[in-house]
């Protein structure tokens, strides 16, 4: 017996590679049992015939794809005056410059492996081959050519894979270089590639002409690609010299949207006399006065009087807005009603909302004040916020210099973006406040927040859009005529905030009790605890839900056609198919709109996955 324990045999084996290869893969994933084999065959047949039908539909010579390309401008900006298109390009340019600088500042560039690239090349080649093989009979002309091209591309990818077998998974290729190659290819394609466009006329005759991909916009797009590369290069050059580059870019991104919306695209007709006589005095007086109060309140000794003072100030300002609205501004049956020109009402609103903003700053001042430098910085932030408030009041009230043909503003995809970005950006702070309100220990605030959230969520968005477009101007009784895009933005913001609040509340609930206790134990105030400890963690936890909401909101903008705005889908389904040359092209345009929506929503979801990976790294 070997139970004396003295005999121990050690055999050293070299590690073996697991079995691999296409046959092994098929056996493990598709045909591992009789049932799975049957299912694979059946589903495979369904996919093949489905694809065949789909490809056939796309390539049918009777499809009027020219209705999409011929109306690209309409789909992008609708009736925005052509002589003002430089404004559109400047807007896109601002975004492109910021994107280039940000890509450099956040060091998004990385390395990809040869394996990832060969996979993409082989994918493209196989897709072309598949189209050539599956396309139904009507597609005869280029079938052989397409099959050969697809086969060549796929084989090239496979050859690249075989020749780099040793280093296939090593990240060796810079994404910057790859992006540069792709961008140069796109730019070249804009100038070179011509596609046959077939037009079918009313009398049945057909005409095929070869036309460039982007006929009227090839120059601006090429310039923008150059600007992107240039701004990335500048970003790389300055990112080490300017350590606060990221912070500056966050501010610039925040500013870019209102500047594009209010100044560049809308060309405000500003009356500088009013600005000097109304806005500047309000800014100077309130800025200095409240700035001084904030400086005093921010001093580092504790004192309950500060909170009492700030809370009374806030209550007074809110009451002033609400009662002022009721007694003076809008209610003609009130004995105190005064009829004032719209400009005066706006001036009063500007003043009152500045007071509310000041009260909120005062409430937070003890938490974020302290040493002299910190207090001076806080006053600086106050002045910036006050400036932003007054500027947005003034800019939203002045008329536009542009003569817009029949619509309120830019339409099409630009309107879709305008609505989506504005509603997302504005609903974010409101939603966070509602979430905090609903999680608050103060019963009145909790009840108000809960009631708001439940009320808004219980009614469809379309109803809120109707309410926003019709009732908002009734409430204001013609005092201030808010223009229709802003009414839609307000309705979507209020709607989206309720959903966002519930998402953020979920994040707040996921934070362990120990985090609150640790913050309490070092003596943090409620405001500090929320802003520094719980909110950042809660928001990080709910990124997937927030991105889901952004995508939903982006698509929900298509509902605004109901209140008479011309968004992308409305133009695609109702405007273009009504043109005499494009009758019967509704399916083509709908599919094109769907592809455009898909490009952006897919980009959102991919970037959010990247963001999650970056934020998740080394935190929990």
């Amino acid at each position, binding site marked *: 017996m070997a139970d004396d324990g003295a005999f121990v045999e050690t055999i050293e084996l070299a590690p073996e590679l697991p079995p691999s290869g296409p046959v092994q893969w098929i056996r493990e994933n598709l045909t591992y049992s009789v049932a799975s084999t049957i299912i694979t065959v059946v589903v495979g047949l369904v996919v093949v015939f489905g694809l065949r039908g789909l490809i056939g539909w796309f390539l049918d010579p009777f499809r009027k794809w020219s209705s999409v390309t011929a109306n690209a401008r309409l789909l992008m900006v609708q009736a925005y005056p052509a002589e003002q298109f430089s404004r559109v390009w400047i807007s896109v340019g601002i975004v492109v410059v910021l994107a280039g600088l940000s890509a450099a500042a956040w060091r998004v560039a990385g390395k990809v492996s040869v394996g990832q690239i060969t996979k993409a090349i082989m994918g493209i080649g196989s897709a072309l081959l598949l189209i050539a093989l599956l396309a139904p009979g009507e597609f005869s002309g280029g079938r052989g050519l397409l099959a050969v091209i697809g086969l060549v591309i796929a084989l090239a990818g496979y050859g690249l894979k075989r020749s780099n077998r040793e280093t296939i998974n090593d990240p060796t290729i810079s994404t910057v270089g790859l992006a540069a190659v792709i961008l140069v290819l796109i730019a070249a394609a804009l100038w070179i590639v011509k596609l046959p466009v077939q037009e079918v006329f009313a009398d049945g005759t057909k005409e095929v002409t070869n036309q460039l991909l982007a006929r009227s916009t090839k120059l601006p797009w090429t310039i923008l690609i150059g600007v992107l590369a240039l701004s990335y290069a500048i970003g790389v050059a300055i990112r080490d010299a300017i350590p606060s580059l990221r912070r500056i870019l966050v501010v610039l991104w925040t500013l870019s949207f209102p500047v594009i919306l209010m100044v560049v695209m809308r060309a405000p007709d500003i009356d500088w006399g009013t600005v000097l006589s109304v806005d500047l005095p309000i800014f100077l007086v309130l800025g200095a006065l409240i700035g001084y109060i904030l400086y005093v309140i921010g001093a580092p000794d504790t004192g309950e009087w500060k909170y009492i003072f700030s809370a009374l100030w806030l209550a007074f300002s809110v009451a002033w807005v609400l009662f002022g609205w009721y007694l003076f501004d809008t209610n003609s049956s009130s004995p105190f009603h005064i009829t004032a020109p719209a400009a005066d009402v706006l001036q009063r609103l500007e003043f009152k909302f500045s007071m509310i903003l000041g009260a909120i700053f005062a409430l937070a001042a003890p938490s974020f004040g*302290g040493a002299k430098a910190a207090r001076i910085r806080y006053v600086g932030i106050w002045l910036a916020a006050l400036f932003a408030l007054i500027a947005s009041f003034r800019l939203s009230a002045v008329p536009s210099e542009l003569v817009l043909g029949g619509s309120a503003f830019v339409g099409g995809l630009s309107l879709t973006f305008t609505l989506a970005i504005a509603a997302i950006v504005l609903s974010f702070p409101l939603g966070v406040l509602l979430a905090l309100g609903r999680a608050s220990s103060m019963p009145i605030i909790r009840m108000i927040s809960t009631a708001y959230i439940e009320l808004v969520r219980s009614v469809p968005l379309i109803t809120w859009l109707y309410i926003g477009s019709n009732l908002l101007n009734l409430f204001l009784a013609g005092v201030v005529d808010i223009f229709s895009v802003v009414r839609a933005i307000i309705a979507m913001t209020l709607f989206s905030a309720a959903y966002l609040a519930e998402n953020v509340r979920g994040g707040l609930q996921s934070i362990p009790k120990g985090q609150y206790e640790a913050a309490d134990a*070092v003596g943090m105030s409620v405001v500090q605890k929320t802003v520094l400890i719980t909110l950042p963690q809660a928001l990080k936890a709910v990124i997937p839900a927030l991105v889901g909401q952004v995508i939903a909101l982006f698509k929900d903008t298509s509902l605004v056609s109901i209140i008479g705005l011309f968004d992308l889908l409305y133009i695609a389904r109702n405007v273009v198919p009504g043109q005499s040359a494009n009758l019967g092209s509704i399916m083509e345009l709908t599919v094109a709109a769907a592809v455009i929506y898909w490009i952006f929503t897919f980009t959102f979801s991919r970037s959010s996955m990247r963001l999650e990976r970056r934020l998740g790294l*080394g935190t929990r």
Partner: protein
Amino acid sequence: MSDQAIIDCRGVKKWFGDFQALRGVDLEVTKGEVVVIIGPSGSGKSTFIRCINRLEVHQEGQIFVDGIELTNDVRNIEAIRKDVGMVFQSFNLFPHLTIMQNITLAPIWVKKQSKSEAEAYGRELLERVGIPEQADKYPGQLSGGQQQRVAIARALAMRPQIMLFDEPTSALDPEMVKEVLDAMKELAREGMTMIVVTHEMGFAREVADRVLFFDYGQLVEAGTPEHFFTNPQHDRTKLFLSQIL
């Protein structure tokens, strides 16, 4: 009450619903004293030290910390919390901040120190607890023992007069207990006033000035470690010690 007492508790009672967690606890702790509290789980020892910085609210009795009574007055609570550091069983580090940010957050925002001042002291503290090289990592990248030492440094960053330890080694792997206890011993030698809830009898024997035994929400027995471990008076103490030693 002597003039020396930095913590003075008189008849502290506390209920969770109908369950009485503390049944009238009297305790005086003098400056620089190290008090170790032991007792079976559910005996109210954690609840008691959590009352001292008002993470739990006592319903009857009085607690004075450095002459200030703990009441509902927010100013008193804030003043006492700046003076009393706490270390938790589950560390409770802030996972979204680096080690250095964890340590400097409260000095910067609560004590209004400048960032450079807070970071200089933060580095000194990390040196003292023996992990200066971890300053830029996140809590999730550290071992349990390292995390708990960061938690000690975080509490010390506020320059407290009193440190409370709520079972600081209970959530640690055995091989990491020693490094945390060493940091605590170091602190005791420097003259910090400490109240420690723990099951580490070796630590109690070596470091404590006084050992308290809690059971059923009451302070059953108190004495020097020598007296306590060799000659316990009360039957319940004897039973408890026989079970764990």
